[in-house]
């Protein structure tokens, strides 16, 4: 048994209630999300379908011209399985409009532009659909900073943000998502042949194991070395977590007055709601 193993039915119940209650506070009963054909967005979509009813969930497929065509096929299988509403918005023109104006060769930058183009689409459609944007970032990638700020990381509610990748797999199987979605190698599909694990330089299983000890169990560096982790791996993960903290927080505001937003103006979003 893996120490990260969750009770999937319990997690499903909590997350469905979370989505319903948090959206309901602000008068929302519908959701919109980007469905990539990958496991994370499929799990978010399944949870949203259970929380709001499948017909109240709009799954948006947003391929770029270089996207792997299998991704759309996998996304369509998820839509068929869940019975939610779907729409395809090809972002090639949107992204290319920018690439035609500003020459971008760096594939990381190109990937970020695509991720942000998808964010533009989702936030626009959320107005038309009258639904909140549901996030698809899991705890592993949030901690590692493996996401595009204001891109795929942008959402109103994120049901997956406290689940490691291993736990996402468990939940996906529990939710009976198509095996083609669950079993393929995770990829951001921002350029051809990309896989998360090749890009990160370690596996999700390795990342999950060390992250859970570091973050949840509060292991110190010495504790981690004693537990058998290599020094350079511990250092690399620690650096990634710290370097990417900026992605997890709102923009920095310079304090001038006696009371400053995000410093000493302390209110939850649930403010009378």
């Amino acid at each position: 048994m893996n120490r990260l193993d969750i009770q999937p039915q319990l997690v499903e119940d909590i997350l469905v209630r979370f989505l319903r209650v948090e959206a309901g506070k602000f008068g929302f009963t519908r959701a919109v999300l980007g469905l990539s054909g990958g496991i994370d967005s499929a799990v978010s979509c399944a949870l949203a379908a259970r929380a709001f009813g499948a017909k109240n969930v709009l799954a948006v497929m947003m391929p770029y011209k270089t996207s792997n065509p299998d991704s759309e096929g996998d996304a369509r299988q998820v839509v068929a399985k869940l019975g939610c509403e779907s729409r395809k918005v090809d972002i090639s023109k949107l992204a290319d409009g920018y690439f035609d104006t500003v020459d971008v060769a760096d594939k990381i930058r190109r990937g970020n532009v695509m991720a942000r183009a998808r964010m533009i689409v989702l936030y626009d459609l959320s107005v038309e659909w009258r639904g909140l944007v549901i996030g698809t970032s899991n705890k592993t990638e949030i901690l590692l900073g493996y996401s595009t700020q204001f891109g795929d990381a942008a959402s109103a509610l994120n049901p997956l943000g406290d689940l490691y990748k291993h736990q996402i797999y468990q939940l996906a199987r529990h939710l009976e998502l198509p095996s083609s979605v669950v079993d393929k190698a995770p990829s951001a599909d921002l350029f051809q042949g990309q896989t998360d694990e090749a890009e990160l330089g370690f596996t999700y299983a390795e990342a999950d194991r060390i992250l859970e000890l570091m973050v949840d169990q509060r292991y110190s560096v010495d504790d981690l070395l004693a537990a058998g982790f290599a020094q350079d791996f511990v250092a690399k993960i620690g650096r990634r977590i710290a370097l990417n903290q900026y992605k997890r927080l709102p923009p920095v505001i310079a304090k001038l007055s006696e009371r400053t937003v995000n410093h000493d103006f302390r209110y939850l979003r649930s403010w009378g709601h």
Partner: protein
Amino acid sequence: MPMDCRVVLAQVEPTLGNVALNLETHVREIRAAIDEQADIVVFPELSLTGYFLKDQTSEVALALDSAELEQIADLSRRISIVVGFAERGRDGRVYNAVAWFEDGELLELHRKVHLVHYGMFDEGRDFAPGERFRAFESKHGRFGLLICEDMWHVGSSWLHFLSNVDALIVASAGPARGVTEDETGLRSTHVWNKIHDTLALLYQTWIVYVNRVGSEDGILFGGGSRCVDPHGRETAAIAGLEPGRATAHLSSDVLRRARVATPLRRDEKPWIIARELARLGSGAQPQ
């Protein structure tokens, strides 16, 4: 005085900072409890105000003579009522408080002693701590009031045990957490249940625990309200994370039998503890 009363556990879902709306929920729950001829209705911690108040704390704090609490007091002519709220003290401090209203009057006020400020909690910043644990006589029996973290410090319940309470009433706003496969269900629920069962058994008292549900910016509260008898056995419970209501029957017969079988209070030696505390002197003070 023998105790024989019916207590309604009102597992509600307060809305953060919306006292008017929460008051409506309270009135509805109180009326439902009156309809079922209960003697006491218990609400969770900060039930009238919501929990993660932060800068709202002083904005929504209620003075004991506020119109909202007057309305609760008025309803208490028909049923005893325990409610939680941010209390604006006459000294200008704000306390995390629960009040017991009975026969139209405030009978007892408990201000949370063990404010919690670690992990996700920051109560020490927003509230002033209470300074005492006092048992009191209601027309339904002898009670002690605790708020959530108070129960994690065994001395709180021990003092009530020394004061010979029939029942501990615990108002709580405990988050739901821990979903791995160590046990079935939430780890937070298991931990609370262990505490209730153990303290009920060791202090031979009824324990009525009322926790809230709902979500405040993604933190879900775990519910799991329940009643445990002086043998540490559950006699009423509300399962799940939804609002709900359960009725527990508290009687002195069960207390008497438990205390005859195992006379822990009779054999307790608090004077030894007092002597040892005195001996520790400054060692017992904050470090």
